[in-house]
Structure formats: structure tokens, C-alpha cells
């Protein structure tokens, strides 16, 4: 154990260098800074917006519009007599949208004709703030149409219910899930599923990228610095040498991925706490959140798939000649990781033919990506198959590494990807 500890410390010292710490600190700070900027922008978006109004009509329908606008915006009357003057004044007062109600607006409607209002977008940055404000304005215009339409219907249909006339069909949405009928919108459930599916690949991707790079670099360095042969003739088991490299990579990548996720969370959810808690509420109401048993199984699934990636990278990096080749050698593992990632957005795995499904199931990283969906939908056979497959694959890969580590291939086989470029 003393020898293994010495090797582990040596590996950690090799991996932790100034460049690694600097890049780590920079990325964390970058996430935090972007997150803070996003948060302050979100707060601005949540503030009551200002809107300019040019009222050139004094009829009753114009008043309806003004009342509706005032209930949502801080309405400012924009001075001037021409569109250029209105825009100039609005621009100087930092007002991003201006609604102009032309003369004769109410009279046109009363005469049974369609009347126009003009909407001006005052652009300064073409940023998200202006885009969102325009979206809000469009929905307000739809509401204005609906309220004027309601008033007209009340006047012209002698007491008929305008709601009935405009929307005679009412819908109530239900979702059948895990043998239960839930009164819920399928949109909300899909939103929760997608939210769950986004984070899992990010965590796994980060962990695997860090770990694979570290182990490939460690192996490449041993060969580049010509230290591997010396190490292999010491009275330490080959398994200890390789596991010290793997464990040190796992330790560091867990620390790094945790810190990255913390920074990333700050960035992703800056100012969106409301939306997140809404999704959490959906999960609670509809029994979609993973129970303790599910969380444990999920943890096992993530760990096993990470280990698979690590073992695969180790096998490839056994044959590389230097650190540059080592970095490129992790590409096959990354491709295997990206396939299920993209498939999870585009393909409904349960609808695939048995052959296609088997092929996708053979990719080890498929299982953590689909874990939540399988578990939430009660496909426990698929969940347990995934875990059993990963266990078996890890055993086989470990045996292969130990075998390879005790053969001549370690010193005689060569992959030099630099030459191929």
C-alpha cells in the first residue's frame, strides 16, 4: 500500500501544474463573471418596462388600449408631431418600444372596419433585452385585439357570451405515465425531461474530457520523458502503476468537474430561479423526481460509464508515443460519447428496431443519457441491462489493460498521430 500511495502522490504531482491551476481558475472566474452579468440583465428584464405612447385618437377603443398598456407598462406619452420626432425623443429617453394610435382609430372600428395601430421598435443594441421586450409587446397586441373583440361581440350579439363565441371548445390535458393518469400538460413534462437530460451529459462530458486527457497525458509523458521503462522494472505491480494513474485522474477530474459545474450553474441559472423551481414543482406533483433508489442507481450508472471511458482511454494511451499523440488519441472515446448525446435529442430510442436499439445500447455512454427517461417511465429492464452491461464491459476492459500492461506491446506498439497529420 505504501508503494501504491507513493505512486499515487507522484501521479497527482505530475498532473497538478501551474498551467492546469491557472486554466482552472480562469474558467471558474469566467463562468462566475458571465453569470453575474446574466443575473443583472435578468433583473433588468424583470423590472417593469417602459413604453412610449403617441395618442392621436380620443375614441373609446383608444382608451381601452391605453388602459391595457398602463396595466402592464410604465406608459410615457412621447412628444412630437412627426415619426422622426417621436423616435428621436424615445431614443433619448431610453424607451425601446413606441405604440402610435392614429387619428380616427376608434371611428374605423365603430364603422366595422379594421383599424391600424403602429408599433415602433427603437433599437440601440439589438440585444436580448430588446428582443424580449418586443415579444412581450406582440403578446400585448394580441391581448388588445382580444379585449376589443370582446367589447364588439358584447355590443353586437345582444347578451351572448363572447368567450363562448370565440372559443366554443374547451380542452383539458391529461398524461398517462407509469400506469397513472395525470392531469398535466405534456409540454410541462417534456420540459422537465429535457431539463434533466441537459445536465447529465454535461457532467459526464466534463468528467470524461478531464479524466481522459489527464490519463492520456500521464501516459504520454511517461513515454516522452522515457520514464516508463524504469518504472516498469521496479518491484511494483503493473496493476498498481496503471491504477495509480487512473485513480489520480479520477480524483482530480471529480474536483474539477464539481467546481466547473458550480461555476456553470451560476452561469446557467443566473436569474432563472423561478423557472427552475417551476420544473421542480412539476417533478414533485407528477412523481417524476428520482427516489433514493433511483439516485443511487443513477450514480452507479454514471460512475460505471465514466470508468468505461477511462479504461478505453487508458488502452489507447498505452500505445501513444508522446503527449500530443495522447491528446488526439482520446478522440474515439469522445465520438462514442457524442453519438448518444445527439441521438438523445433526435431519436426516440424506444421506437427503434431491435437491431438499431441493440447497436445503440452497445455504446456504453447511451445508458447514463437515457437513464432518467427509462427510470421515470418504468423501463426497469433497460435500466438494469445498462448497469449489468457496464459492469461486464468494465471487467473485460480491466482484464485487457492488465494483460496489455504485461505484454511487449506496451513498449513495442506505437501510435504516433503527429506523423499522420
Amino acid at each position: 500500500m505504501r508503494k501504491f500511495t507513493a505512486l499515487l502522490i507522484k501521479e497527482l504531482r505530475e498532473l497538478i501544474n501551474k498551467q492546469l491551476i491557472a486554466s482552472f481558475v480562469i474558467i471558474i472566474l469566467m463562468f462566475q463573471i458571465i453569470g453575474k452579468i446574466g443575473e443583472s440583465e435578468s433583473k433588468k428584464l424583470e423590472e417593469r418596462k417602459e413604453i412610449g405612447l403617441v395618442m392621436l385618437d380620443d375614441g373609446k377603443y383608444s382608451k381601452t388600449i391605453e388602459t391595457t398598456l398602463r396595466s402592464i407598462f410604465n406608459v410615457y406619452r412621447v412628444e412630437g408631431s412627426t415619426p422622426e420626432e417621436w423616435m428621436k425623443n424615445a431614443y433619448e429617453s431610453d424607451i425601446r418600444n413606441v405604440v402610435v394610435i392614429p387619428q380616427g382609430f376608434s371611428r374605423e372600428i365603430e364603422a366595422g372596419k379594421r383599424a391600424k395601430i403602429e408599433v415602433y421598435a427603437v433599437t440601440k443594441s439589438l440585444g436580448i433585452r430588446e428582443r424580449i421586450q418586443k415579444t412581450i409587446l406582440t403578446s400585448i397586441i394580441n391581448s388588445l385585439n382580444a379585449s376589443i373583440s370582446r367589447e364588439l361581440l358584447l355590443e353586437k350579439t345582444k347578451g351572448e357570451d363572447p368567450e363562448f363565441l370565440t372559443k366554443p371548445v374547451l380542452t383539458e390535458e391529461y398524461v398517462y405515465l407509469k400506469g397513472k393518469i395525470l392531469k398535466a400538460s405534456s409540454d410541462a413534462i417534456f420540459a422537465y425531461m429535457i431539463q434533466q437530460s441537459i445536465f447529465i451529459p454535461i457532467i459526464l462530458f466534463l468528467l470524461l474530457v478531464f479524466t481522459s486527457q489527464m490519463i492520456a497525458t500521464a501516459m504520454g509523458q511517461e513515454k516522452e520523458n522515457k520514464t516508463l521503462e524504469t518504472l516498469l522494472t521496479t518491484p511494483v505491480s503493473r496493476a498498481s502503476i496503471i491504477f495509480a494513474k487512473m485513480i489520480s485522474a479520477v480524483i482530480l477530474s471529480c474536483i474539477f468537474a464539481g467546481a466547473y459545474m458550480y461555476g456553470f450553474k451560476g452561469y446557467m441559472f443566473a436569474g432563472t430561479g423561478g423557472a427552475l423551481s417551476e420544473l421542480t414543482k412539476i417533478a414533485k406533483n407528477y412523481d417524476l423526481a428520482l427516489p433514493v433508489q433511483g439516485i443511487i442507481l443513477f450514480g452507479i450508472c454514471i460512475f460505471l460509464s465514466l470508468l468505461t471511458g477511462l479504461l478505453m482511454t487508458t488502452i489507447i494511451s498505452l500505445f501513444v508515443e508522446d503527449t500530443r499523440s495522447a491528446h488526439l488519441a482520446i478522440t474515439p472515446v469522445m465520438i462514442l460519447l457524442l453519438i448518444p448525446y445527439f441521438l438523445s435529442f433526435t431519436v426516440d430510442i424506444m421506437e427503434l428496431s431491435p437491431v438499431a436499439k441493440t447497436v445503440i445500447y452497445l455504446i456504453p455512454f447511451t445508458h447514463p443519457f437515457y437513464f432518467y427517461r427509462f427510470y421515470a417511465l418504468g423501463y426497469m429492464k433497460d435500466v438494469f441491462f445498462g448497469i449489468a452491461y457496464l459492469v461486464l464491459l468494465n471487467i473485460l476492459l480491466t482484464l485487457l489493460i492488465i494483460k496489455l500492461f504485461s505484454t511487449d506491446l506496451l513498449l513495442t506498439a506505437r501510435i504516433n498521430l503527429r506523423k499522420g497529420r
Partner: protein
Amino acid sequence: MPVLEVNSLIKFYGKVQALKGIYFSAEEGEIFGLIGPNGAGKTTTLRIISTLLTPSGGEVKVLGFDVQKEASKIRKFISYLPEEAGAYRNLRGIDYLKLMAHLYADDKKEVEKMVLKAIEIAKLGDRIYSKVSTYSKGMTRKLLLARALMHEPKLAILDEPTSGLDVLNAHEIRKIIKEFAREGKTVLLSSHNMLEVEYLCDRVAFIHEGNIVEQGKPEELKKKYGVKNLEEVFVEAVK
């Protein structure tokens, strides 16, 4: 019992036969030199004896242990210094020695003893506390040789120990090897520098295209072929 016995050693790399039935032995306290040009099979032979490569045929025994069946036992008694070997560049010389000592020693006291011995062999002064990345080639070689000898192996296998070094550094390295053998330890070294081997070795074997073409004591070989040095012996032997 000889410290090292090599009998009918064969090695194939795919279809290429690198060793074609090599045989020699080395006794306790002896410096045995394996001499030959580049690509003759010296490094392959040393790698097999160091348990790094597996033989395709024949037998290699170190202190009576078979290299294939009892590799882990052999690793306790040998040390191998590869040609162009390096040390971990981000470690200080002293830390590198401590790390390697931990891999051989059973307790802290033994680690300290080994490190002190290595410092004495390397003779790097205060530079032992500098990072390996700041060392010259000669300093690195001395550090590595100190590492190879610090645990007092029964058999030290040194591949081209002075390759690429200047005259002074090469001289110091040769001195260290001589002193080590005087303590009763066996050294197997390879070189294509015949003069160096003549100065260092008690016995030599000439290796050419995977075969041993001649072996014996330098003086006897020179006498046998009626020449002045080992270089001329080699030329005559491969004719």
C-alpha cells in the same frame, strides 16, 4: 551460482528475428559488457533480462529466477538504466530519489538510507534540490545512475551508460560503476564504445546481428586475435 544466465535466447518482433540464440553468463562482482553496433540486439537482450520484454525462446535466469515465470521476484534484485532514460521533470532531484526509494524500500528508515546513498553517488551538491528540468544531460545521467544503484541491486543493467556525455561526465560515470562492482555487485552493461568497455569490463560478449560472435576476458580476446584493442577483435570476429 552465476548471478545471470542467458541460454539460447531468441526474440522475434513480428517476423523479424532480433535475437538468434544468445548465450552468456555473469558472476557476482563482475562487470560484463555486451558490445555491438547499433541494431545488433543489445537493448533487446537487456530489456528481456530486465523483465520488460518476454523472450520468444530460450532461457534467462537472474539469481536462479526465471524472467518469464518469476519476473516480480527478479525486479526486487535488479535495476535497469535505459539508454536516454529521463526523470520526472517537474520533481526536484531529491524528490525523484525519494519517490524511487519508496518503490524499493519496506520502511521509512530504508528510504532515508537509500536516498543518502544516492546523494553520495550522484555528487550533485546543492543542485539535488533543483528541479530535474533544470539539469544538464550529464547531471540527469548521474541522478539516474544514482537511482539505479541506491538500493544496492544484485544486478545492475546499464544500457549505454555514458552515451552522449562529455569526457568528464563519462569518466565520472565509469568511476561510479567500477566502485559499485568493487562492493561485490554485478553489472551488465551495453555499449558500442569498445574502448570504454575495455576499460570497464571484466568480461565481454560481442553481439552482431542477433548472435554472440565471441566472448571472454578483454586481454584473452586481444591475445587470441593478436590485436591491440577490442575494436579490432570485433572486426576480426565478425569477418
